[in-house]
């Protein structure tokens, strides 16, 4: 009996020592660093919903941020990343508070779902600049990329290459930015071939290897050879490759995942935006009402897959891109109808950015429903 109690006591003593020993060692960082900010002292916090090398959205954000920092000479060690932060208030608040207590100057919320929560938190602490992907909400610098410009080119290229009029699109979840990608792709296809139709299939998941595989298979079974995608796993390109179909990668350059199927990829390039935000933060000129809605270089395309895409098509795509950049082509320009027969934009007019951002429609030549 005694032995038992002695052993228990021992464990308790050890454990107490273990924890008292550690509580002394973690004092909050002094705030001597405050004051003048420069590129060597700025501390940046990044909050992502998955891991930063997820092969998709988070990776694109992270790489863009690293590129911007490198350009400005900010050491990589100044960046603190918190991964796997769920899109709910408690998780976001917790990540924010942890970063705040670490003394960061800028927080980048890399998922649209953080917006409303970060907005409240940012109001309580104006010292920290918060930039947030997605909608424009109070107290946050908002940023978003006109992905439909890149996807317009994707659809254009697909339609040029496809022999049939029917193209496909594998979507993840019906969210505005996803719909923008779909509509961009469809309008691009129509630009190349007025008869082009885009069959849409939803996976109803942001990341599901199975469902994405099945989406691609379903499209291929429809006789579709070329498809666009808005998905994060490599399942769709790989399914295309296995079934002699082709697709346009999304988020990051997906060439290596399926070298025989990916024509090129649409890539998010936040680097110019981040560069601007970082500069403003260091200068002290950051304005929380600022909103970036960028196309052009931000809606980047990866290099073409020369083995598949003929040179003439490459040229055509590049020339359309130039026209887009110059504003000669308006993706959401009139006359524009949705696939339920409503006129969205009258002839000669252009849809407002507000409407583009929250778009709740699918354009005329998309087969499918957004609801």
């Amino acid at each position, binding site marked *: 009996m005694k032995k038992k109690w002695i052993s228990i006591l021992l464990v308790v003593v050890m454990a107490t020592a273990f924890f008292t020993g550690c509580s002394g060692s973690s004092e909050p960082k002094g705030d001597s660093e405050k004051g003048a900010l420069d590129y060597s002292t700025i501390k940046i916090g990044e909050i992502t919903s*998955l*891991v930063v*090398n*997820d*092969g*998709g959205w988070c*990776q694109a954000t992270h790489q863009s941020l690293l590129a911007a920092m490198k350009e400005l000479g900010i050491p990589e060690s100044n960046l603190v990343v918190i991964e*796997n932060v769920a899109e709910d208030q408690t998780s976001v608040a917790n990540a924010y508070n942890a970063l705040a207590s670490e003394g960061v100057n800028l927080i980048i919320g890399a998922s649209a779902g953080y917006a409303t929560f970060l907005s409240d938190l940012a109001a309580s602490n104006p010292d920290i600049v918060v930039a947030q992907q997605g909608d424009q909400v109070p107290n946050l610098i908002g940023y978003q990329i006109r992905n439909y410009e890149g996807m317009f080119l994707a659809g254009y290229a697909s339609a040029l290459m496809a022999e049939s009029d029917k193209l496909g699109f594998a979507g993840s979840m*019906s969210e505005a930015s996803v719909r923008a990608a779909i509509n961009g792709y469809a309008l691009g296809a129509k630009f190349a071939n007025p008869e082009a139709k885009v*069959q*849409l*299939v*939803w*996976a*109803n*998941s942001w*990341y*599901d*290897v*199975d*469902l994405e*595989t*099945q*989406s691609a*298979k*379903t499209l*291929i*079974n*429809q006789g579709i050879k070329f498809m666009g995608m808005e998905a994060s*796993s*490599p*399942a769709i390109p*790989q399914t295309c490759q*296995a079934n002699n179909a082709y697709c346009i990668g999304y988020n990051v350059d997906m060439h*290596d*995942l399926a070298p025989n199927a990916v024509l090129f990829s649409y890539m998010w390039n936040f680097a110019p935006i981040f560069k601007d935000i970082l500069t403003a933060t260091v200068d002290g000129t950051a304005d929380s009402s600022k909103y970036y809605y960028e196309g052009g270089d931000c809606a980047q395309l990866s290099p073409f897959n020369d083995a598949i895409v003929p040179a003439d098509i490459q040229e055509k795509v590049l020339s359309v891109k130039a026209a887009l950049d110059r504003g000669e082509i308006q993706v959401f320009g009139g006359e524009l109808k949705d696939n339920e027969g409503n006129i969205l934009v009258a002839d000669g007019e252009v849809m407002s950015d507000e409407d583009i951002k929250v778009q709740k429609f699918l354009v005329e030549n998309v*087969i*499918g*429903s957004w*609801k």
Partner: protein
Amino acid sequence: MISFITSICAAAIVYAVSILYAAIGEIFSQRAGIMNLGIEGIMLMGAMSGFMTVYHTENLLLAFLVTILVGLLLGLAFAFLTVTLQADQTVCGMAFLIFCSGLSGFLGKSVTGIASAVKFEPIPIPGLSSIPVIGEIFFQQDIFVYLMYLVIPLSIFYIYKTKAGLMLRALGENPASLDQAGINVFAMRYGYVMFACAMTTISGACISLSYTNFWNEGMTGGKGWIAFSLVAFSRWNPAYAVLGALLFGGISILGINMQVYLPGVPSQFYGMLPYAATVVALVITTGSFRKKHSEEPAALCQKYDREDR
């Protein structure tokens, strides 16, 4: 239309195979009286370890073996907790689920989001694969599918026609009587739990070595839970597990196709179909309005403690 059906069938087979390894393994484990709720986590460990090996060595066979080894080790740990320490099987399963999903993410961090150079590719079987329809459905698959063609009859034969299978069935019904007969009940349970975990990791490897050549945290996306549900659904008979897996796979694939053929219904409702079908099928096959002797192993989830005898 024919090509549509064959393609759905072929896809349903691929889907079914990826959960059947885990489900058949779990049938053995539950027949031995041990329930493992942590299948999802163990599958992730399988997917991660297999991919990790293939990424670094480009040797698929080695990856397959490493996957099995990882499964055996996890099984050993699970058996130690549930058989030797007689811990509650439900909590243990949950703990394994959490621990393994964390561990797989942690260990696999360095290879997340990168493709490996090789993966298991479909191997059309000469001759058989050119049979119309059937060839396309059954014989243009990869090694995991062909292996499953062996696993199904072997597991049924083992359970119902061999001495060891007989002992396994008795083990789940009444471990005390086996113990009295001088059979090492604990060793048997260790064996079957380890076997089940190895099968579960193979299911994981299906996803990272054959479905794709890619690893990402949580990439099994709930397949482990489906495999778990399949076990009771199958009434602990691998043959019914096969039917259940094909049904679930078929319906979920059909659900996506329905978006094309029957548009207008919000796609989430098609997503619900396989789960609703599972409930309905479960009610039909196991509901007690069918007067039948219950197939559930009587000792399932019961701690076996010699001193309680």
